[in-house]
């Protein structure tokens, strides 16, 4: 197992009038090569939760164990943690600061104390992983790139640290539909080809349904559901009760079912739904 969270509770400004329980008693285990989608409204606690996985926040109560190490243990340094867990925040291009793409991406590896040779290897590899041409961009200023390319360089800056777990908060926000697809496919490849465990925070049910193996649902500080997309989306009434939308294609199946048509409502991607409808309606 790669991440084990037990009884995780975070209370902001505990004991003052501003006291606010952000997350309460969250428990889950994530395997080393999982692709997990995390959904929930703004303020549901999902962003508080992910910041505990690399100790940007410390739990008020509970433990976070990554690869067998309790990351809040006394002897564990921040460097030990960031080596294993990378976080890509929303709009990560805002963290770019160096004169060249190479220097920016090498910031992480250098902080980990790697020598020039190893750093160069990691930088090259990560720039290629995010789908950019290393030779072409290495000496360019990151500020001269297009929006989509900046985003990729910023992601490369985290990937270059070779994390075994990569957390991404809305990595595609602001990108056009094709840009979104490219980013999600790139993340999927990191998961399948490089075996990186992915935690993907997203508002879009359709994207989560399409790419993730498992889905975590947060609502009002609690993890209320955790399972395969099929399992989680099966209970569409519950999701609607916490005002999360079920993928649109799936809603069609449920409307058909309500009309008294005998149809399987478990498919959730447009491809699967089309298949089910065709099976039922084509003579």
């Amino acid at each position, binding site marked *: 197992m790669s991440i084990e969270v037990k009884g995780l509770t975070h209370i902001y400004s505990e004991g003052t009038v501003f006291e606010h329980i952000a997350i309460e008693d969250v428990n889950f285990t994530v395997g080393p090569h999982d692709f997990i989608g995390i959904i929930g409204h703004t303020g549901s606690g999902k962003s508080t939760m992910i*910041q505990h996985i690399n100790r940007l926040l410390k739990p008020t109560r509970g433990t976070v164990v990554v690869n067998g190490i309790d990351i809040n243990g006394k002897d564990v340094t921040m460097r030990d943690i960031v080596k294993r867990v990378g976080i890509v925040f929303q709009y990560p291009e*805002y*963290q770019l600061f160096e004169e060249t793409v190479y220097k920016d991406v090498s910031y992480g590896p250098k902080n980990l104390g790697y020598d020039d040779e190893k750093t160069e290897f990691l930088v090259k590899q990560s720039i290629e992983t995010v789908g950019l041409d290393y030779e072409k961009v290495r000496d360019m200023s990151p500020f001269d790139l297009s929006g989509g390319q900046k985003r990729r360089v910023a992601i490369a800056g985290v990937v270059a640290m070779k994390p075994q777990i990569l957390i991404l908060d809305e990595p595609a926000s602001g990108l056009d539909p094709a840009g979104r697809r490219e980013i999600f496919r790139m993340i999927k490849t990191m998961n399948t080809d490089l075996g990186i465990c992915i935690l993907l925070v997203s508002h879009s049910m359709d994207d989560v349904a399409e790419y993730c193996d498992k889905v975590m649902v947060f609502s009002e500080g609690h993890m209320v559901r955790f399972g395969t997309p099929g399992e989680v989306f099966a209970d569409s009434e519950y999701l609607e009760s916490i005002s999360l939308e079920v993928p649109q294609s799936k809603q069609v199946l449920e409307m058909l079912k309500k009309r008294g048509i005998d149809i399987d409502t478990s498919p959730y991607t447009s491809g699967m739904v089309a298949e089910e409808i065709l099976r039922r309606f084509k003579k």
Partner: protein
Amino acid sequence: MIKDITIGQYYPTDSVLHRLDARTKLLSTLAYIIFLFLVKNVWGYLAAFVFLAVCMILSKIPIGYVLRGLKAVVFILCLTVLINLFFTPGDVIWSYGVMKITEQGARMAFNVAFRLLLLISATSLMTLCTDTISLTDGMEELMRKVPLVRRYAHELSMMMSIALRFIPTLSDETERIMKAQKSRGADFESGNIIRRAKALIPILVPLFVSAFQRASELAMAMEARCYRGAEGRTRLKELHYSKADIVAYCIVILALAGIWATRYIPAP
């Protein structure tokens, strides 16, 4: 740390201080600060302190909230006090190795500490009970009375109001960038001063880039909302003196006279 700066952060209550005209509060604060520098002895500080304490109670703002604003300046305060304490020449009253405290130094440190504390508390109280628009409008009006500055009165007050408006935004942004760089292994806590200063570059550069970006977008948004400077502009909240302001001016003048009078009381 930036979160602790309460100067410029309005705290709405329905107190009599909140209802006063911004100009009254600005001028009174200015006069109060000037008088702080005229104080000669402990009685003066006591009088100044009592006056400020009464104002704080009148403002209905929780005392803790006002004091939180002081947290941000504790470092500067201690530094100034220590420098004055140890480096003022005069009659030595205590020494240990190369360190020595002089009587003059002790007095100076005491003076500086009280002056700074009262000055900052007074300014922060003034901003806490004046909403930013009234505050900057008040400044604009006052600046219009000053030759030379007059021409830029509107621009200066607009700059001030935008700066205050962006404090919380940029403070959130700083926190966000810090977290992002920390996740890339940045270390802001160890090493000598040069190392630490260098570690700030990955935060400062993105912060400036984003601030410039915001500034250019804001300029465009202001233009889109027909902003053309002071010309032909009206105000939602017009400043006007009421009876309460006249009373306030009288009270402030009397209080300041009181503070002045302490100069003639012999120091203990």
